[in-house]
């Protein structure tokens, strides 16, 4: 009669000699999978940047790979695109700031507040993410007409109107990341500050805020990117001669495509890469990305 232990022992012996290390299949599959993912994610950018160096005949469609590489189209970027780019940077920067000013106190309330209906409040702050942007754009346009009719102050086509729309869609990102860092924040740090004689205000600005700053940077960066890349809302809230960069590109592609659009898009891609590298040097992008899931 064999015991369970003997059976187990036998089953191990039946598998033959111990396995030697062969080809590292796990690693090969891993690298293959990662490479394919990167190619998939980067290919649109590679095509845009590549096609922007096209120096040959002008086609009405993208030419990739480019013939006769040249910088020709980089000299032909129209002034309106530079103006639109300026507006977009200003708008995205200030929308990110506005999102932080609303989002940080909101996150504090959601995490720390002893208030009824916290779940409801937190889902209200998430709502802009769940409404299709195009609906948001139409809603704001309607709202601005109604408010305009009532007060004589029309916000469509103004910076203020655009700004309100962008802060609306950007704020949830700050609320999300700051809520996440606050939930992991050790409140004893604040107690320590208070025990050392700091006022609540001082404890917040000297201890809490600096410690949750990675979350603020991450949320601010998302907010900036959402605002900077937005078309569906901006398209309703801009006006001729007052256009954000993505909307300007959109019109450009729609009406009279020429490769200068690719050139200016490539410039923006380069700029973004530089900005990311700069941020990596300054605050450490690893810390930024970790703050979402740490």
């Amino acid at each position: 009669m064999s015991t369970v232990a003997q059976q187990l022992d036998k089953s191990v012996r039946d598998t033959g000699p111990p396995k030697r290390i062969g080809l590292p299949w796990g690693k090969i599959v891993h690298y293959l999978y990662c490479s394919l993912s990167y190619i998939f994610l980067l290919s649109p950018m590679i095509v845009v940047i590549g096609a922007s160096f096209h120096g040959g005949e002008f086609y009405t469609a993208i030419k990739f790979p480019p013939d006769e590489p040249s910088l020709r189209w980089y000299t032909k970027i129209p002034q309106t695109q530079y103006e639109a780019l300026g507006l977009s940077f200003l708008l995205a920067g200030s929308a990110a700031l506005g999102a932080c000013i609303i989002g940080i106190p909101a996150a504090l309330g959601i995490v720390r507040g002893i208030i009824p209906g916290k779940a409801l409040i937190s889902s209200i702050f998430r709502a802009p993410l769940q409404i299709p942007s195009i609906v948001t754009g139409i809603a704001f346009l309607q709202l601005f007409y109604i408010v305009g009719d009532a007060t004589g102050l029309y916000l469509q086509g103004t910076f203020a109107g655009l700004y309100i729309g962008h802060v609306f869609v950007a704020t949830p990102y700050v609320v999300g990341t700051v809520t996440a860092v606050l939930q992991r924040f050790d409140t004893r740090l604040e107690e320590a500050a208070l025990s050392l004689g700091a006022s609540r205000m001082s404890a917040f600005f000297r201890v809490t805020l600096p410690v949750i700053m990675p979350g603020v940077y991450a949320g601010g960066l998302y907010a900036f990117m959402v605002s900077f890349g937005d078309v569906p809302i901006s398209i309703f809230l801009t006006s001729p001669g007052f256009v954000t960069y993505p909307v300007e590109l959109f019109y450009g592609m729609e009406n009279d495509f020429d490769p200068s659009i690719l050139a200016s898009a490539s410039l923006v891609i380069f700029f973004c890469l530089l900005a990311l590298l700069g941020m990596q040097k300054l605050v450490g992008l690893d810390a930024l990305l970790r703050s979402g899931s740490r």
Partner: protein
Amino acid sequence: MSRVQLSNVVKKFGDFTALHELDLDIVEGEFLTLLGPSGCGKTTTLRLIAGFIQPTRGTILLGETDVTGVAPQHREIGMVFQDYALFPHMTIEENIAFGLKERKYEKSKIDARVRELLKLIRLPDAAERYPSEVSGGQQQRIAVARAVAYPPRVLLMDEPLGALDLKLREAMQFELRRIQQELKITTVYVTHDQTEAMNMSDRIVVMNHGLIEQLGGAEEIYNHPKTKFVADFVGQINLLDAAIVGEDGDWQVAETMATRVKVPRHAEVAQKSAVAVGIRPELLKALPVDASVNGMNSIPGKVKGKTFAGNLVKIFIAVGGDHEVVVEGRPQEWFGEPGDAVQVAWQPQDAIVLTS
């Protein structure tokens, strides 16, 4: 440095009463430890003194000032937390200077004070480093320096050594005691570690279920515990259920495990009372069955097992059937082997009669 007085302090969290009518008078310059298992109310008491929570009833005095209802930032306390709670984004120097800066001290004075404190905690060269760059024991000393930089009226410590390993914890006990005595600062220390409490404190408050079980010096609490809980929580003890059945000269006679033994006279205990007789393991002896006991109490038992811990040996002996007692002694003593019948013996004056 101040006296701290809690009078009639009650703290309820919803329906749960964390503290029942606590009265505590902490003498100026004293090192007082609140000792008890988790949930006994010791941390609640500390946080009430700090002002992080407010009492449901009762008053708290710091020195002559009634601070009941006063926010922590206006109490002039120093607090040391279990996981240090150092500010991770500030250097060690900035951490220590935090309280002084908040109180708008001149930079030169702050610098001098920080240097002085770094010397006190024996880390004179750590000023520019960040908390994450120093060891746990060093972080703990920095947390103490930060708490005392602006001399607090009372220093509060919440299990400050809990996160350290044993060797370091022992070294830090003496280090903290040294700093406390050098600064002559009134200190309230919270721990669940009785060795720590006995090593460091002037007085110990043993707490259980939101009540003070006993307050006294280490020796008093160890040698004269008032309740079974204190006897059991502070050190190890063998408790034998017994009944007082008579008197024998200066002694009372108790019956336990079907054996009559002499026990010290207990003022409040009349005949037939159900009591517990407590004897510390190091005061018990295991003797061969035929050995003479010379006036000691003895009850028969059987060796169940033994453990060897280098400098001492613990023997587990079943008495009165299956009640297990622990005998502790030096390795060279005779203990018998597992399975042997033995006598468990002790001097009558070494037993403690406990009624509750």
